[in-house]
Structure formats: C-alpha cells, structure tokens
C-alpha cells in the first residue's frame, strides 16, 4: 500500500469516501511525517491534539455518508492566519504569545468544509522576504537539494513553510499569502503549484496585514487539481472585508477537464530581462510550445511598464506596511519591552526588540516615503505608475486570454547567498506586476534546472478568471509531469 501522505487531496478524498482508510489514520500519518521532518523547520507549532479531534469528527461525518468537500483532509496553515486559541504571530517576536480569540475567514471556510489543521507554518516575518530567512523562528529548509549536493537551499518566501511542507508531504496542502510573489515564488522553488487569486477573491479578515492593497490569500498544493479544490473552499465574499468581491466562485475543478484549443496566450516581450538566464528562457519557450501543441494560439504582446512594477512596489508596500505595523506598540497584545519607564520609550524599545532587521528596514522606508515633503514624489508617483501597469494589462486582455511568463529568474538558492536587499527584491521581478494590477497568477512546475532543481512557469489571468488559469496550468502540467523531492530528512 502506498504511503497515505503521498496521496493528493483528490486521491485522499476518494480513499476516505471508499473507506480504504480513516480520517484519523490519514491525520496520524501526517503527524508522524511532521515529527520526522523537523529539520526542515516548516512548522512553527504542531497541533496534534486538535488535529486528531478534528479528524475524529470528520471520521464520524464520513461514516454517516456526510461531510464537506475537504472532509478529513489535513492542512498546514501559514502563521499569518488567525487561528482561534492557537499561536498566530506572523513569525514575529513582536506578537510574542499572541493567541487570537477569533478565526480568520479563510481558515473558517476550510474548517466548515471539513479540513483538519495540523499546525502553523513558518514564514518570513510579516511576510517580508523571498527566502524565509527573516523568520523569528529560523530559516525553513527546502526539501530539494542540488544534484550530488547536501547543501541546504531556501524554499523561497514569504510562504516558505507552506511550500516546504507541501513539497515534503507534511500536509496535503497549505494556506499561503501573496503580496508581491509570496505564493508563486516559493511554489516555483519547491516544484509545487501556487495560485494568488484576484484581489478580493478571498477575504483578508483575520489575516495579519502587510500591505492591504496587495495582500491576497491563496493555496499551495501538489498539483493543479488540488489547488483548484483548495481555492474553491478558501474564496468567499465576506461582510467583514469590504474589499472582498461579490463574484460567484465557480467550480474550478470542472475547468480542468476543458482543453485549451483556441486559447490565446500572450508572451510579453518585456519579461525577457537582461541578462536572461538561458535555462529560464528555454523553459519559457518550451511552455509556450506545449500550449501551442495542445491547440492554443501564441501571441506576442507588450506590457511596456513592466520594469517599473518592482520599484513602485517598494514604495507602495513599505508605505502600507509602516501604517499597518504601527499597531504593534506593546500596549494591547504581544511583546512589551521590560525597560520602559515612559510610553515613548516603551513603544521604541518594544518595536526595536520585536521587529527583525528586514521589517524595520521596510517600516523606515515606508515612513520616509510618506513623510512630509516626499509624499507626492514617491507615493503618489508610484500609484500613478501602478495605474499604467494596470492599463498595460487592460489593453492586453483585448488580444489574449492569459499571459505566460517565467515564475522566477533563478531556481532556489542557498541561505546567506543573497545579502543585498535590492538583489533579494529582484526575486519577485516576474510576479510583482500581478499584485500591482490586482490580477490572478498561478505558478506551475514546468521543468528542472541543470542542477536538478524545480523551475516554474507563471500564468496571469483576467480579473476573477481563475478558472481559465487552472485550465491552462493543467495543460502545462500534462506536458511537464510532476516533480517530487526525494526524502533525505
């Protein structure tokens, strides 16, 4: 019998319904796998008691022939999502000891549909990072290694724990969030599938805020079908988030069966960066060829403001973050510095001790660009550039249905390899435009690097047209196959 943890959500769902195994057996298999894989540091907190209780309740429902679409499916939850009574700290010291008295809407939707929580997943502090090296709880390790090497690699970030846990089969799938690429870049680094849906598709209520106009929740999963199943449950319109959209959530799984004959796929020339790594260029061309072979039409397009998306992002995101993170002052929750004789000293010491270096850097940048005299030169200009980026896409949608690009400029790198902040930011060069324009984007594994590491392609879609993204991503998956890390842990 194959190991229970090797099953996709779709396969586990069928097995549970057929009573090949119980929900508790499935959860216990994952809990054992997590215990054996602590070296990856993917989980910050394991919740075995809660997981078993939820699995037993699922088992009872399944026995009666009842149960939701995710009944008995064990999931990992990024530490950014508020989970009632359970560690929720955005992997930051500043939220030391914080246990919410409420549940995020996205996780509440998953529990409503029968899913089981295995624990909270590591991440970059406040989702600020591209390598999961900024977590207060230490680096996450990628289950993938270079061929003939034992050296550790980063899983990408900020959803590094989610990506690592999914790739190492430490959960059936995971929740994640994406502000500039934090779902898609780690998915690409670990051979998993990650989708950032349209802004407004998932409620942001109960998700620790980073940059509110860019943040979106989405899943990281083992294949396109599982990502489709997850997003269907996660998405909802929510009275508690006025930016959540009142747009019907279609049956994404049904879209997978549809072929892509006649689908118009745009290839934006501005994504050919200088210098373009040859293996990324080849991967991109191969992806386009696969789609063409399956009946799609390939169209060259131009998105002229692409190169300005990342610098504009590094004004907008830190500006919003400096405002959102003002709430961590040591008064109402989390850490309070001990050496605080008066309030300003209490604020300054708490924030100095509680925030890590990258978070402090971004708060300072954000405070600076919003400060008197600089607001128009930086923030307003960046928001104007954002209008132009969105307009580029709006014009492209007249000619194409989806846009195909690489997901990342490189495969996974080693911890400590990138120390310059701007070099680290360039990891998101292909993903950040999507957040700036509020569009959905999916990263799907498409091949291996020369060193034996997974590489991903990205598909970008029209607003609220995630179904077409799943359809096109499934076509790439059919051609590329799947990629599974060999266990060494």
């Amino acid at each position, binding site marked *: 019998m194959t190991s229970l943890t090797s099953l996709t959500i779709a396969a586990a769902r069928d097995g549970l319904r057929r009573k090949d195994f119980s929900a508790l057996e499935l959860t216990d298999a994952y809990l054992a796998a997590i215990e054996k894989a602590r070296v990856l540091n993917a989980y910050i907190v394991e919740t075995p008691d809660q997981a078993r209780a939820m699995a037993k309740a699922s088992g009872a429902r399944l026995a009666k022939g009842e149960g939701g679409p995710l009944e008995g499916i064990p999931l990992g939850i990024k530490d950014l999502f508020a989970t009632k009574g359970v560690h929720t700290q955005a992997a930051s010291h500043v939220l030391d*000891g914080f246990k919410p008295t409420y549940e995020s809407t996205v996780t509440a939707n998953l529990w409503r549909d029968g899913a089981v929580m295995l624990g909270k997943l590591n991440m970059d502090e406040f989702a600020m990072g591209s390598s999961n090296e900024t977590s207060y709880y230490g680096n996450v390790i990628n289950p993938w290694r270079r061929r003939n090497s034992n050296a550790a690699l980063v899983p990408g970030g900020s959803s590094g724990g989610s990506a690592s846990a999914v790739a190492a089969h430490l959960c059936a799938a995971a929740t994640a969030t994406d502000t500039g690429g934090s779902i898609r870049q780690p998915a690409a680094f670990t051979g998993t599938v990650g989708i950032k849906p349209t802004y407004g598709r998932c409620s942001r209520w109960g998700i620790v805020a980073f940059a509110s106009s860019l943040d979106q929740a989405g899943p990281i999963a083992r294949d396109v079908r599982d990502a489709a199943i997850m997003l269907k449950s996660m998405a909802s319109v929510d009275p508690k988030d006025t930016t959540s959209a009142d747009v019907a959530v279609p049956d994404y799984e049904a879209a997978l069966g549809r072929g892509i004959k006649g689908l118009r796929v745009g290839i934006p020339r501005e994504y050919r960066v200088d210098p373009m790594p040859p293996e990324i260029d080849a991967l991109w061309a191969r992806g386009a060829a696969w789609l063409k072979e399956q009946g799609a039409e390939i169209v060259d397009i131009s998105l002229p403001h692409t190169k300005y998306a990342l610098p504009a992002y590094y004004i907008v995101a830190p500006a919003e973050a400096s405002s959102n993170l003002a709430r961590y002052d040591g008064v109402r929750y989390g850490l309070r510095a001990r050496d605080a004789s008066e309030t300003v*000293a209490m604020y300054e010491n708490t924030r100095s001790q509680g925030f890590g270096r990258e978070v402090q*850097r971004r708060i300072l940048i954000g405070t600076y660009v919003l400060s008197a005299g600089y607001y128009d030169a930086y923030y307003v200009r960046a928001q104007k550039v*954002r209008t132009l980026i969105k307009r580029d896409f709006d014009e492209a949608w007249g000619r194409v249905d989806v846009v195909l690009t690489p997901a990342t400029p490189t495969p996974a790198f080693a911890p400590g390899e990138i120390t310059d902040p701007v070099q680290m930011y360039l990891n998101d060069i292909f993903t950040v435009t999507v957040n700036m324009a509020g569009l959905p984007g999916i990263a799907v594994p498409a091949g291996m690097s020369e060193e034996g590491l997974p590489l991903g392609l990205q598909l970008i879609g029209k607003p609220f047209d995630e179904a077409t993204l799943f359809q096109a991503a499934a076509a790439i998956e059919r051609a590329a196959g799947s990629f599974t890390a060999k266990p060494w842990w």
Partner: protein
Amino acid sequence: MSVDQDTVRRVARLARIRIDEADVPKLAGELNSILRWIEQLNEVDVAGVEPLTSVITMKMKMRKDEVTDGNRAAEIMTNAPASEDNFFIVPKVVE
C-alpha cells in the same frame, strides 16, 4: 534625494523604532541603495495619469449604520501584556 544620518534618526523616531547609534551609518547606506534603485520611476511620464486607488473596479459597499458587534471587553483584554479591570496598563503619562 539621498538620506543622511540625521534623516535616518528622524525617520526612526517618527516610526517609533529605537536604533543603535552604531547602526545609523549602515542603515543610511541600505536605505540609500533602495531609494537609488526606486529613483528609476522618475523616467516614467506620469503627466495626466490618475493615481490608482482600487485595483478592482467595484462600487464601495454600503451597509446599514447599526451596531453589529461589541461587548467583548474581556476577550479583547486576553492578550494584553498588562491590564487591570479591563483597562490596558501603560507607564505613567501625566505627573
């Protein structure tokens, strides 16, 4: 526009983050390299372009102006570092 060491101290004070004096030169260097890279936005012609306010075109939702939640003082206090009788305790602010 470049950031000098006094500006770093001023911005840190505005952000209510205490920074070590020894860290100021390094922070100034890092912030300058990020801001230099951001300067490329000056190449873009933004004349007549409206700043983006919402990525998705939708009407702002309205709801009835009525109380839908509340009476959760005890719940709100559960994570407070210091509290007494549903008040947050902070260092003395008036003499």
